[in-house]
């Protein structure tokens, strides 16, 4: 796990991620400015660091109601504003970007941050950016696989010779600057289905698995498929970290947590995805067997430990700011994480 900067003796890592969505608060119907949203994201990373949270990541999305299209710029600001928290994308859409430029950006962020940068590279769940950036949607799979491979090659080799379909050849090319310790942790973003996880396993890369909701048992199949694929390709699964990411919200009681969060998820999904989140499905989120970490701090601790037991993952990443969640509620959550949730999780997962 050293290659990926993960020390399991300190227990499972806990992180936060934001998609950088910029949606109205359904309570007030008001939308803060893009300026305020970006500054709140930077402040959120600072507060997370102060609370002892291990990891903070920012997503790239090019559709309406999002503010972090230039996510590397935001990450650079976070790098400057913080001292020890790990920082990453979640995810970088590698399909529609040049891996050389992406690597230059993240190696630079790594230098600014003193060796804290990582890349999570994904394929885009929404495809508006293909038109915006001049790519053909028919190349969806091929673009991702080629560019993800090139990104990894740049990470592994100081001098690159490469040719492919979607970018100019590289002949004895040096991609500079190099990261502080020579390489960056690069994760493959997986949407929760086994097919993509299996590809991550065959390639021998860490897996970052995002999920909206559903039973732990279903996602366990994906994790198992990933580790099986690693093994089949001759890799040692114990050397590759797994991260899971999904909805999180802590409040005094599970009922309060549902009440606080539901309108944000429902209205936010309607605007960004066209369909709301069914109340019935959301209500299931408090069940101990659900992947959604919503409830009282004690309930969340039990859920995360149960998930850790099932997945054997090295990092959990919470999404709690979706859908115009007011900043004071985010602060309250960070406080609950720092004082109650994190110490318990570290205590029970340290090896």
């Amino acid at each position: 796990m050293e290659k990926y900067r993960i020390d399991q003796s300190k227990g499972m890592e806990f992180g936060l991620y934001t998609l950088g969505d910029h949606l109205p608060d359904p309570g007030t119907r008001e939308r803060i400015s893009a300026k305020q949203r970006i500054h709140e994201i930077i402040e959120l990373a600072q507060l997370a660091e102060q609370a002892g949270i291990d990891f903070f990541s920012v997503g790239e999305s090019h559709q309406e109601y999002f503010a972090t299209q230039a996510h590397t710029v935001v990450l650079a600001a976070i790098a400057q504003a913080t001292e020890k928290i790990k920082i990453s994308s979640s995810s970088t859409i590698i399909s529609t970007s040049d891996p050389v430029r992406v690597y230059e950006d993240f190696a630079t962020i790594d230098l600014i941050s003193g060796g804290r940068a990582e890349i999570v590279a994904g394929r885009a769940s929404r495809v508006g950016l293909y038109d915006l950036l001049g790519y053909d949607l028919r190349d969806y799979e091929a673009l991702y696989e080629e560019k993800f491979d090139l990104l990894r090659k740049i990470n592994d080799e100081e001098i690159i010779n490469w040719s492919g379909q979607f970018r100019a050849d590289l002949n004895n090319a040096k991609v500079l600057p190099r990261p502080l310790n020579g390489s960056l942790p690069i994760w493959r973003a997986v949407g929760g289905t086994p097919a993509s996880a299996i590809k991550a396993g065959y390639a021998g890369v860490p897996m970052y698995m995002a999920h909206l909701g559903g039973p732990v048992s279903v996602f366990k199949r994906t994790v198992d498929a990933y580790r099986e694929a690693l093994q089949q390709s001759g890799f040692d699964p114990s050397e590759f970290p797994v991260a899971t990411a999904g909805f999180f919200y802590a409040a005094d009681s599970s009922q309060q947590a549902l009440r606080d969060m539901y309108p944000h998820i429902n209205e936010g999904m309607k605007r960004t995805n066209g369909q709301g989140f069914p109340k019935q499905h959301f209500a299931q989120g408090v069940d101990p067997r659900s992947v959604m970490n919503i409830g009282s701090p004690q309930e969340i601790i039990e859920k995360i430990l149960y998930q850790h037991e099932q997945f054997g993952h090295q990092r959990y990443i919470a999404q709690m700011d979706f859908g115009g969640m007011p900043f004071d509620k985010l602060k309250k959550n960070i406080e609950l994480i720092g004082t109650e949730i994190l110490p318990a999780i570290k205590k029970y997962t340290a090896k």
Partner: protein
Amino acid sequence: MKVVGLSGSKVGTKTRTAMDYTMKAVSEKYPETETTLIDLAEYDVQFSDGRNYLEYEGDTKYVAETIMEADAIILGTPIFQASIPATLKNIFDLLPVDAFRDKVISMIVTAGSAKHYLIVENQVKPILGYMKAQIVQTYVFIEEMDFYQKEITNEDVLFRIDRLVEDTVVLTETYKQIREAKEAEYDF
């Protein structure tokens, strides 16, 4: 309540004739409903390429969004080559997998032969079920001989359309009440 009629063919007139009658029946009997008829012959809808429906442009976006905003959908389809027209199948392909959750869907079918009666059972209902629709189980099947010069001449067909309209609206209201009662239990 938003009721959308979807006439699923670019070819011929019988389905459109039946849909015109049906949507008129909805408006007359339930004037409080908001009705929209989409005749696919009048729109230039592109083939689905797998993107989210909000990301299409032009006619494709209009048709997809109008359907997604409906509370009830009345599908009209002819039977071609023992199947539904590609134009209608493409609409299903453009939408998310659970596009019809919390929607009631009923069907009007026109065909040259009574022998195609089970096409709806075997082909359309499984798709609608998969996409989470609440289906009005009885559909109106109209044969060639029930029409004369763009008019429906078989009174029995007209009665059956009226019943279908009534069932569609009543079921939509009923499912809405069930959903509201269930959601009220959640206290969030």
